[in-house]
């Protein structure tokens, strides 16, 4: 007769092996390596929690020390490949196969190891896509996660940086896998229960907080006048006419400039209350002045941001906070919110080709995507109407039957025509294609596909790709805002002028934007210190951003 509970019995065996090295659920830090050798089996699918921000760093270090003769060929399924140990385990043979989303700081090494055959790559995913696979074909047998604190029963408090944890635990625990948490301390009572104890099998007291990186702090002092001009074009040329209330911003300086222009330029245009009221957004310090001046009604966060904790605690009407008062972030829910409930995504990129495909791959780096491909895509399953969505759909298909016509999410790429090191943002061929050739990938790592992009904004103007009727028009609309890059200079000038007459391209002068306004005095805050003051001292910038 068939055994219908093999997975449950497998977990039971691991639990018993683990309990020999634990006191109740608590594993002592000095026993951690032996404990992992006892509960892990060769070939296991393992989620070593590496999120965009927080890292299960103590568990990562211990995993890198297990004996490869006992634990080997693991299949790692984790969103972030961030710490050196995340890749060290592939050097020693502890792990062999990798499915991930984002690898920012490890992007060059991961490419080298893939090329050298040390890593067998499953795929590079968007966050939501990898989370989805946790429930279908990549369910972890073991999850190694990170929390702020635990009680003795194993209830976990994940605090502001809850991020991926509930998703990882849901899939692992209910999929008959084993959940092991590192915590900063063990307390009598956790401030709130983010993960219930019956979903957590073991707890390791790391006796220090998990590693977390401030990723979303942009210093207003570094914002250029060209970025201010580009931000004005976005506000007057897109936010105002579409009336975008529900949106997500990327993490670059261009969108930081927009956030800092809302209380000045946006106010002057009479847009307060009409745009930017509801957000799927990490807690960007540069949004503080807009929040303080009453622009923002509500923000749901993917993660937290170092230094923003007290500010968010003091603004519970704006942020999602728990009974303990601190932020509750959740990457899976916020990604879903960005996909289905936002009318606009706007973000920067490093390269855009003539079809509008964009990529952040340059040279030999596999940086992954994080959430951008999900935020920056049209949700084909969306059914609720909104004014910006309907208008975008109408622009794309003016003759279609209105009641049967899909709306379109506004997916906007914004940047200066020349980026860091004078690298042109517009290229004939994406570097991602060279990387795909080199690593023999089936798919080039494209961040936002051209058919999802609706607008491109540069200092030269706004290109509305929804209004382009064929491939040639699209190419010339892109060339028409590509400035003095080689792509821009190779434009068909007559066609670009015709596109401008149809408002496919709009220049600053077409929108009545005064170039004299492109001045740093238009920024509502011009330094990190200004942001701190705007928050009434509640925002506590990390020391690296304090230069006073």
């Amino acid at each position, binding site marked *: 007769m068939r055994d219908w509970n093999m997975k449950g019995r497998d977990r039971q065996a691991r639990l018993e092996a683990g309990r020999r090295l634990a006191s109740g659920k608590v594993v002592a830090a000095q026993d951690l390596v032996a404990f992992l050798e006892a509960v892990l089996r060769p070939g296991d699918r393992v989620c070593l929690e590496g999120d965009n921000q927080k890292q299960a760093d103590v568990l990562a270090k211990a995993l890198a020390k297990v004996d490869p003769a006992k634990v080997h060929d693991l299949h790692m399924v984790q969103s972030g490949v961030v710490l050196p140990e995340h890749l060290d385990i592939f050097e020693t043979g502890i792990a062999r196969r990798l499915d991930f989303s984002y690898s920012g700081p490890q992007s060059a090494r991961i490419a080298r190891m893939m090329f050298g055959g040390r890593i067998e790559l499953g795929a590079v995913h968007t966050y939501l896509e990898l989370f989805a696979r946790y429930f279908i074909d990549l369910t972890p047998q073991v999850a190694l996660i990170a929390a702020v604190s635990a009680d003795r029963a194993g209830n976990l408090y994940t605090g502001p940086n809850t991020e991926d944890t509930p998703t990882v635990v849901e899939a692992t625990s209910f999929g008959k896998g084993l959940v092991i948490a590192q915590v900063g301390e063990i307390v009598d009572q956790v401030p709130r229960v983010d993960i219930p104890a019956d979903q957590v099998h073991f707890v390791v007291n790391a006796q220090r907080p998990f590693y977390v990186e401030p990723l979303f702090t942009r210093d207003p002092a570094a914002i*250029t*006048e*060209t970025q201010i*001009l580009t931000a004005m074009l976005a506000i007057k040329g897109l936010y105002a006419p579409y009336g975008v209330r529900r949106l997500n911003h990327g993490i670059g300086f261009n969108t930081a400039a927009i956030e800092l222009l809302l209380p000045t330029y946006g106010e002057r245009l009479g847009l307060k209350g009409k745009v930017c009221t509801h957000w799927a957004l990490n807690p960007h310090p540069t949004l503080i002045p807009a929040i303080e001046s009453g622009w923002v009604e509500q923000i749901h966060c993917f993660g937290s941001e170092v230094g923003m904790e007290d500010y968010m605690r003091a603004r519970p009407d704006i942020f999602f906070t728990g009974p303990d008062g601190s932020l509750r972030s959740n990457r899976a829910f916020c990604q879903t919110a960005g996909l289905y409930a936002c009318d606009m995504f706007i973000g920067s990129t490093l390269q855009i080709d003539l079809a509008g495909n964009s990529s952040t791959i340059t040279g030999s780096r596999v940086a992954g995507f994080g959430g951008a491909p999900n935020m920056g895509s049209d949700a084909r399953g969306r059914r609720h109407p909104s004014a910006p969505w309907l208008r975008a759909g109408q622009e794309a298909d003016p003759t279609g039957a209105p009641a049967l016509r899909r709306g379109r999410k506004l997916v906007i790429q914004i940047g*200066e*025509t*020349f980026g860091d090191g*004078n690298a042109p943002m517009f290229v004939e061929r994406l570097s991602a294609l060279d990387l795909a050739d080199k690593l023999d990938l089936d798919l080039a790592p494209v961040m936002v596909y051209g058919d999802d992009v609706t607008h491109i904004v*540069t*200092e*030269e103007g706004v290109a509305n790709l929804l209004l382009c009727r064929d491939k040639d028009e699209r190419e010339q609309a892109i060339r028409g805002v590509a*400035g*003095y890059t080689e792509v821009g*200079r190779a434009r068909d000038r007559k066609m670009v002028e015709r596109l401008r007459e149809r408002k496919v391209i709009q*220049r*600053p*002068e077409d929108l009545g934007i*005064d*170039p*004299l306004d*492109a001045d740093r005095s238009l920024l509502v805050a011009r330094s990190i210190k200004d942001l701190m003051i705007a928050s009434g001292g509640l925002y506590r910038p990390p020391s690296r951003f304090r230069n006073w």
Partner: protein
Amino acid sequence: MENLRYELSTTTPAGGTRAVALVGVVASGNLEVLLERGEAPDRCVIDIATPAHGFADLWQAVTADFAARSAAGGLRITVNDGGARPDTVALRLAQGVRLMEKPE
């Protein structure tokens, strides 16, 4: 230092009455633009001093677009470049023309 001069025909004469305007600063990645009147109303002369050699074709493109798009007729413009990118140059030139239109 490379010195470049462009004598351009324009479509629109400069507005306003201000005799002179100065925008920007000479700093790395930035530039200073001095605008004066004194040329024929259908003409604009731009003198450039730049530390970056070999970008004459780019200066040619930026100044030609500027003359075609802006109310630059009658202006004599002196550029002190600090190695600015083309987008910054175009912004400064546009700011200079706007400043000439403003009352002092």
